[in-house]
């Protein structure tokens, strides 16, 4: 199936016309970002991977989860139901699409087997109204390493619909999920049954010397946990949250109350394991008291905790943590060390 570029435009304009939220790569302040578009022409087509992942549209950086008012005698509490708008992410990359499974794993941890376990409805409600239309990458940049962590520039994982660019500049359409099939069915008029040759997809090089299976196994070893090399690799880390906040799979959050006078909101905000106070206990004890321990934790989360606890992947190889790091800390160097 093919959707011509012009028909894709009609589709997008129709979706916007229906009041739906369309997220796509746009140019802002010299950066390509996923953002809400007001028209098809807002979309930037010349991009490798936007600077943010689209996780912020499923798991916002800050959101109210309850409201309260403190009275003379009591406290009034009010739950918050998120305002939901049907959302279409157009132009996601396969790595980002794959990461939604990673977010879901955490936000529904154990709930499938045991319905009494907690499910994060805020996340699930948003995911439930979101259709992910991925566009396969034609090439990566020098920081892309999806092929090293088991994905490819055309992986369908996590996408509802996978689009691949044709030599004529149109898109071949492959519905992946039930949601994707229903979407294609709904917009069938814009999609033809023609066939077109696809543009060639250039895979990022699989990095020799990196073996995620081996990394996982080595990370189970207590001696590796205590290896002084961690201190060396993370010595330059400045402890900011640029990597975690750009990462499509990082999911940690903090709950804060924000009040003005006697009224306030309980908010759920992104948090980062790289921050000094992330693990600070009320007693004053901090189990991750120096930066290398915090950096080690992030790495363990991706390559040990995730593979041990979930079937989803902790790192999708998008390369954002490498691109944004102010001190050029490259996660691949550590992956290589642990593959030895």
């Amino acid at each position, binding site marked *: 199936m093919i959707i011509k570029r012009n028909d894709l435009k009609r589709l997008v304009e129709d979706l916007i016309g229906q009041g739906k939220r369309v997220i796509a790569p746009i140019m802002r302040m010299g950066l390509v970002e996923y953002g809400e578009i007001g028209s098809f022409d807002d979309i930037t087509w010349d991009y490798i991977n936007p600077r943010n992942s689209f996780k912020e549209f499923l798991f916002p*950086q800050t959101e109210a989860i309850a409201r309260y008012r403190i009275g003379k005698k009591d406290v009034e509490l009010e739950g918050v139901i998120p305002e939901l708008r049907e959302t279409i992410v157009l132009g996601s990359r396969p790595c980002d699409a794959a990461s939604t499974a990673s977010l879901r794993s955490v936000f529904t941890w154990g709930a499938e087997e045991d319905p009494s376990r907690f499910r994060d409805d805020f996340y699930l409600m948003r995911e439930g109204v979101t259709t992910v239309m991925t566009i396969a990458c034609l090439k990566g940049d020098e920081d892309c390493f999806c092929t090293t962590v088991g994905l490819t520039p055309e992986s369908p994982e996590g996408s509802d619909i996978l689009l691949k660019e044709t030599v004529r500049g149109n898109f071949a359409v492959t519905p992946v999920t039930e949601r994707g099939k229903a979407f294609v069915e709904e917009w069938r008029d814009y999609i033809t049954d023609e066939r077109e040759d696809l543009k060639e997809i250039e895979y990022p090089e699989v*990095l020799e010397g990196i073996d995620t299976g081996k990394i996982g196994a080595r990370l189970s070893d207590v001696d590796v946990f205590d290896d002084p090399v961690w201190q060396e690799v993370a010595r330059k880390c400045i402890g900011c949250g640029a990597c975690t906040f750009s990462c499509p799979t990082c999911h940690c959050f*903090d709950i804060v109350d924000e009040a003005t006078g006697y009224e306030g909101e309980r908010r759920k905000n992104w948090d980062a394991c790289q921050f000094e106070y992330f693990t600070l206990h009320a007693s004053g004890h901090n189990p991750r008291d120096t930066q290398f321990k915090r950096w080690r934790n992030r790495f363990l989360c991706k390559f040990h905790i995730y593979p041990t606890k979930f079937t989803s992947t902790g790192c999708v190889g998008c390369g954002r943590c490498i691109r944004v790091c*102010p001190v*050029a800390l490259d996660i691949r160097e550590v992956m290589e060390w642990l593959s030895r």
Partner: protein
Amino acid sequence: MDREKKLREKARELLESKEVDLVIGYGWTRYGKRVAPVFITRPEDVDRLIWNPMCVNNLTLYITRKYPDVKAMGRPAVVVKGCDAKTVNVLIQEGQLKREDVVLLGIPCEGVVYRQELYDGEVTKENVSPKCVVCDVKNPPLYDHLIGEKVEEGSGFEGARNIYQEIEELDKKPEGERWAFWMEHFERCIRCYACRQICPLCYCERCIAEKNMPQWIDTSAHGRGNVAWNLKRAMDLAGRCVFCGECERACPVNIPLNLINQKLSMVVEESFNHRPGYESEGHPPLIVYSLEDREDFIR
């Protein structure tokens, strides 16, 4: 490159003589073409040290109290450009560092790139760091060993964007427009605190952003919280910021932090005739009270 060779020689000498335990400099990363801070402790590793226009980081960050792990490694030598050396002066003024605690390997610098990914073998008016366009410290004002010959002062990046001109143009706009300009930027802040973490002069043991009894600054990344955070940091740097430009470089969402920090520097210079970083004596004006301080703002 000649300077690079001299840098390695000096580093080897310092490590072999045990004058220092550690040299903090620049080196290549394993993948890609990036330059990162490196910590050299053995004379045989000095060849990892490099010098080129991608050496943007202000490495004096690592000799502040934010890095107890680095401190535990012993006496450091640090590679400093002119702008980085200015930071050392402020750290000394503020009692954070004693001059004798560190060996400074001063490198005369003819300009670095704004962001490493923009570099294509040459520093041009398009990719140069904005601090270099108005630089008057190509030769470090403070050093123990100068690596190579001094260079001629003066910018040489004619036609590059000039931060002071940009500030002037912004100042001309009506208040509402200026507010809209900053709100558009601050709303995009993701509160990753890369600006604070990369800044050698943001060394508070506990940042106000982390004080929550009471919560002075909303941690939420919404307009109110972001404005509070960014303005608070700018105010804390007023009269101290040496324009190393690291906060803006580190910002993953491109907030033009140089504009706000340099605006405040201009205000401090005008009010107190003080430019931070040029000497290690005295104190930054906003941390001391002087009878000569202007009072004309009290009406």
